[in-house]
């Protein structure tokens, strides 16, 4: 290791512990002295660099961090609260939807189910009869009016048609009663022209604000029923 190399190495790192550097120092006392000088210089530099650190810096640093993390936590709790609220709202909506939405998707399905539910309550040859006047009184709730009776009206009353107030009429049919529903229009149940299952047939008439649904067995001519309904019913505005 020549002198220049040695000096460079020591200047760059006075604590140089490379074998070359140590060997060079041992072989040449002047190099050793130079290395010691630089070590002394380094010691001085080190002392000079040790500027005093403010006493309260540690406290300040910890305080600042505590405040920052407190803010983060506050933000977090706000987010959590918002999340909880959202979940509650969604839960409420789902519950609402499950409780109050209909299990039936169109008028026909519901009408059939309703008729089956009431079947047996009223016999086709029952003696009771409802007058046209009292029918029209009930029809007033739907702003409707029948000009003449469609047949022998066995029973007429309001009922819940999938949660909607509607009028439920039972007429004497040929073999079994014919059911007529007057239902306010609603978007929940889609309108179905005609529907049927094994035993019952039904058809719907669409008016401005109400639907009229006729359900009867296969012996009834629904077309005729529909015709006479549209002929006799009138709607006040």
């Amino acid at each position, binding site marked *: 290791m020549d002198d220049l190399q040695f000096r*460079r190495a020591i*200047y*760059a*790192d*006075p604590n140089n512990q490379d074998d070359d550097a140590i060997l060079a120092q041992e072989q040449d006392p002047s190099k050793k002295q130079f290395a010691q000088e*630089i070590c002394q*210089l*380094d010691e*001085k*530099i*080190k*002392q*000079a*660099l*040790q*500027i*005093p*650190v*403010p006493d309260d*810096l*540690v406290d*300040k*640093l*910890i305080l*600042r*961090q505590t405040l*920052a*993390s407190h803010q983060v936590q506050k933000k977090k709790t706000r987010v959590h609260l918002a999340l909880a609220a959202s979940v509650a709202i969604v839960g409420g909506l789902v519950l609402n939807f499950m409780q109050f939405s209909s299990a039936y998707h169109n008028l026909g399905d519901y009408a059939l189910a309703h008729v089956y539910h009431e079947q047996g309550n009223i016999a086709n040859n029952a003696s009771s009869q409802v007058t046209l006047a009292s029918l029209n009184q009930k029809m007033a709730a739907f702003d409707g009016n029948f000009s003449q009776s469609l047949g022998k009206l066995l029973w007429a009353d309001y009922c819940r048609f999938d949660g909607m107030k509607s009028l439920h009429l039972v007429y004497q049919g040929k073999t079994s009663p014919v059911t007529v529903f007057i239902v306010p229009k609603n978007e929940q149940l889609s309108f179905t022209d005609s529907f049927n299952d094994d035993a019952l047939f039904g058809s719907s008439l669409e008016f401005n604000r109400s639907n009229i649904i006729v359900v009867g067995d296969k012996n009834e001519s629904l077309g005729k029923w529909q015709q006479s309904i549209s002929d006799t019913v009138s709607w006040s505005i």
Partner: protein
Amino acid sequence: MMTKQVRYEALVKALHGDLYRYAYWLCHEKQVAEDLVQETFLRAWRALDSLKDEKAAKSWLITILRRENARRFERKRFDMSEYEEASITDTKSVTTEQELENHWLRDKIAQLPPEYSEPLILQVLGGFSGEDIAAMLDLNKNTVMTRLFRARNQLKEALEAEPVKRGIYNG
């Protein structure tokens, strides 16, 4: 949560002094150095989970601090006036011979070009090896060694050319 807090406080206690001194020698102003250290530790707190190796903590913090210092210049162009003696840290009356010498040497270190003084501070104050410094400053190791050589060389020459009655200007 608690362990993070404990880690953070340990980190602050162990390294705030080194970091503050390093910051001071980067910017030569006490207040700015303190702000830099605050900002650095705040960032460190947020990213504490990314610090896996506690041994690397010091160089990690210094890297954050250097970035923070660079950001300071992005935000605002400072008037890069010549280093004024008045802003030397220890302007109070110095008493002992040792303190006088420190004062004088600080002046000289502050006058070194930053590319020389920075590796020197990292080596002497931080105890980093040439390789470490090269990695931190994103430089070649030979470049670092050359700069260290020049830094010491300049200081030594200054020390040798030192007037006999140095320090008299303090009066």
